[in-house]
């Protein structure tokens, strides 16, 4: 694996999914042969889960610059209905959340068909909560959970996985108190490494490079 970051290429891809086509971006080093891969799953689409999300984009690009082939994707949908928005406003859960899980599974199937190599699953926020659905589909070897929304979503299946896990949290994340993440990480099956970034909130604004650095250090000790 290269020590220094390398120049990368990106290409847009279209992924067939049950609820419509997903837009994705595949990133990989300009030169060299990637031996590993990463699938990055972003936040809820009603909470900024888009391709241009700063964490999703930075992690996908950053890992590619360190030699991995990465895929990030946007969840399907032409925009929420007023019913979906109203329910999400009230409960924090959208009625079509199961469809978003299906989207992620479709992305995982596409990834498994098109990318070879040991795969790291990276989930951010809501995306971390649905990684368990994708582990077998991509034959994942490691999990990275960024600001997992322990307080809002069910992480039982993720915790049960014996895969090595890197959990990156913030000490001032509005979505989940740090002690909840610490407790959850301690109970995980398999090795779970918890890294806390100070004052990163839930969003890692201007800490994106540090976030990528923590992941690459963990991947390439």
């Amino acid at each position, binding site marked *: 694996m290269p020590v220094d970051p390398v*120049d990368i*290429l*990106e290409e847009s891809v279209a992924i067939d999914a049950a609820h419509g086509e997903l837009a994705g971006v595949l990133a990989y080093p300009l030169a060299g042969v990637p031996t590993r891969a990463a699938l990055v799953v972003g936040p809820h689409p009603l909470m*900024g889960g888009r391709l241009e999300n700063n964490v999703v984009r930075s992690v996908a*690009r950053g890992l590619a*610059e360190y030699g991995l*082939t990465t895929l990030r994707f946007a969840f399907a949908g032409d925009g929420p209905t007023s019913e979906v928005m*109203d329910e999400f406003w009230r409960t*924090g859960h959208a009625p079509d959340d199961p469809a978003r899980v299906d989207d992620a599974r479709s992305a995982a199937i596409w990834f498994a068909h098109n990318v070879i190599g040991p795969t790291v699953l990276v989930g951010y926020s809501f995306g971390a909560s649905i990684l368990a659905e994708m582990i077998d589909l991509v034959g994942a070897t490691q999990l990275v959970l960024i600001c997992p929304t322990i307080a809002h979503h069910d992480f039982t299946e993720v915790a049960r996985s014996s895969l090595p896990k890197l959990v990156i949290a913030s000490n001032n994340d509005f979505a989940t108190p740090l002690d909840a993440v610490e407790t959850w990480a301690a109970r995980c099956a398999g090795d779970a490494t918890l890294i806390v970034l100070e004052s990163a909130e839930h969003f890692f604004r201007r800490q994106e490079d540090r976030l990528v650095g923590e992941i690459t250090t963990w991947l390439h000790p």
Partner: protein
Amino acid sequence: MISANATPSPTRRPWVMLTGATGVLGSQVLHELLARNHRVLCLVRADTPGEARRRLADCTVHACGDVERYFETGQLAVVRGDLHLPMLGLSRAVGERLRGTIRSVIHSAGSVVFTARRDGEPSRTNIEGTRAVFAFASSCGCRDWHLVSTAYVCGRCADADEVMHDEPTAYRNDYEYSKWTAEHETRRAAQSAGATLTVYRPGVIVGHSRTGAASRFTGIYYLFRAVSLLAKAADQHGDDRRHIPLRIRAAGDARPNLSFVDDVARELVDIFDSPAATGGVFHLTHPKPPSNAVIKRALETFYNIGGGTFTENARCDDALDDSTYDQLFTGALGAMSDYLLNAPRFDRNHTDRCVRQHPTPWSLSRLVKLLEFAEGCDWRPPTQMDPARSDSAHLSDYFEHFMPRTIAQSKLSQLRNLDLSVRYVIDGAQDGDWLCQFCRGHLQTVQRAPTTPADITYRLDASVFWRLVAGRSTTSEIFLSGGARIEGDVERALKFAGIIQDFVSEFPYDVAQWTPDAG
């Protein structure tokens, strides 16, 4: 398997490699290439891939807008490199990977240093750097070479044809020598490599023909800046007539060949796209540039000054008699002054046969537009130009009229659980503090300069606000890039940001109707 080894698809189009994309002309050339669906690989100097992407994005935003979309579709890529390093500083692996994938190289990078410096410029970049670029092109198997030179490789002459010139009897400066040498060295290298060389020769490049926007203020802008300083000096001396007794060593009817940057870039890519043009020499000059007298009139009009006279035949020893104004003016002008004295006429028959559209005609108002832009940004080139400016009347229109009317028709009004007070604090705008009270999805009240607390507050710059309501930026982009700050309940603020995003997509507020430069 698409990317088991990250091997580019064999069906993918080859690259046009572009150097100098962060420069004045290069950024506009990049815009033209992307707009015409070329796949462009930019060589950018940077320490990390991220820095290279950011630098390219920052330096081209005025010409190309947000280039992220081009990165993400694979139409644009950046490779870090340096003209001053062997093989451009690219690793052997990168060189191997690019072999056979580059269809053409457009070398637009260059130094505009007029007088030789200790660091070797301008020859270091214009001669040695050019040599390195085309050596790399050759090693990659690229045989279609394009060199951006200057019309002034003709040196001191009255007329210049679109041919490779014999060495002029006299150059104005070291810059011209370096460009002439680069042309001839590259021609020889192309012949050795079996490549075709197309040479583009712009004149003096200025800002955009429509907006006056420029990303740097060099060249003729030294003249503009000198006059600007003189006008300020006249103000300080209390001369309310603003009469500046200045002797301008130039001919009133001479025409320094000023060309708008967008015209030059468009013509360059027209020629690049024309198979019949391959291997030619092209003057990307203006067929009828403004005379010194017209430039002087524009400056006098804009700065409300007078008193300058042309003294074409003044000798050097007259400098002893120069006034303070003369000395200040001449010093500020520097090597540019020579281009005002002697302005060749450039033939452009070759160019005219290949381009789709003639350059924008010059006028007094277009000259003034250049000055307005430079003064408008206080001679500091903006990396990002705000498409819109705030104004209290428009904020009032937006909050008091547009929002109540359109929200009633929107999906937002159907959110029966939405009970929320939202405050917008818009920095940099007069009357930029507004409170919106939602009750069961309806916008119940709107209050300017509120005194009651809000559930959530968004703080954002005026330019960011107008981009948001125009639908040019998403709420997540704005918030996550730090363009907006949230106070209060963060979770509800984020949820509401998503709702507002949906609303502005449904009902964008068309700032273009009231901002002259927008759109």
